């Protein structure tokens, strides 16, 4: 935890220092600091994902559902990171478009799940 905080502080200081000297290098330093922090976060995330798979095996859930779920989380994570990166470059309108596309992709992924849910309900209704 301390490592993450120290990386954040060092990035902020380096960016502030470079802003006065060379503004375009300053945003490169902020982006690199952000990436370093995200790499630490991804390492932490690795363990939780393996727990996900263990739960899936024990409960006998369909592996494709878990894969879709993880894909959605990944897409959310990536779109959040890249939209902030783009707004850092100074064009928030493009960042909003990236977020919109991310949402649409997640919606696209959720269609098969909804379909399987409806089929499940239909076969329940068939019993009634």
């Amino acid at each position, binding site marked *: 935890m301390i490592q993450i905080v120290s*990386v954040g502080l*060092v*990035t902020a200081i*380096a960016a502030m*220092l*470079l802003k006065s*000297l*060379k503004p*375009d*290098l*300053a945003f*490169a*330093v902020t*982006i*690199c*600091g952000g*990436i*370093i922090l*995200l*790499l630490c976060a*991804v390492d932490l*995330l*690795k363990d939780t*994902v393996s727990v996900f798979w263990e739960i899936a095996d024990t409960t006998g859930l369909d592996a494709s559902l878990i*894969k879709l779920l*993880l*894909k959605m*989380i*990944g*897409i959310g*994570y*990536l779109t959040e*990171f890249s939209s902030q990166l783009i707004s850092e470059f100074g064009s928030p309108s493009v960042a909003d478009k990236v977020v919109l596309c991310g949402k649409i992709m997640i919606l696209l992924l959720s269609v098969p799940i909804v379909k399987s849910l409806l089929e499940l309900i239909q076969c329940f209704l068939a019993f009634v």
Partner: protein
Amino acid sequence: MNIGILFKIAAVGLIVTVICQILKKSDRDDIATVVSLVGLVIVLTVVVQMIGDLFEEINGIFQIYG
């Protein structure tokens, strides 16, 4: 591993600024702009490589194949 990259980029920025100042003082402004461009290109290649690593890492976990 990765905190060093941050210092490298800051160092490149500082060196490029110093060189530009020196070149400006000895009134060779065209070389100064070229040097600052080269510095920027170096930094951007490092940044792009880091973004590539991050995306690979995320792909390894979430299998997005994005």
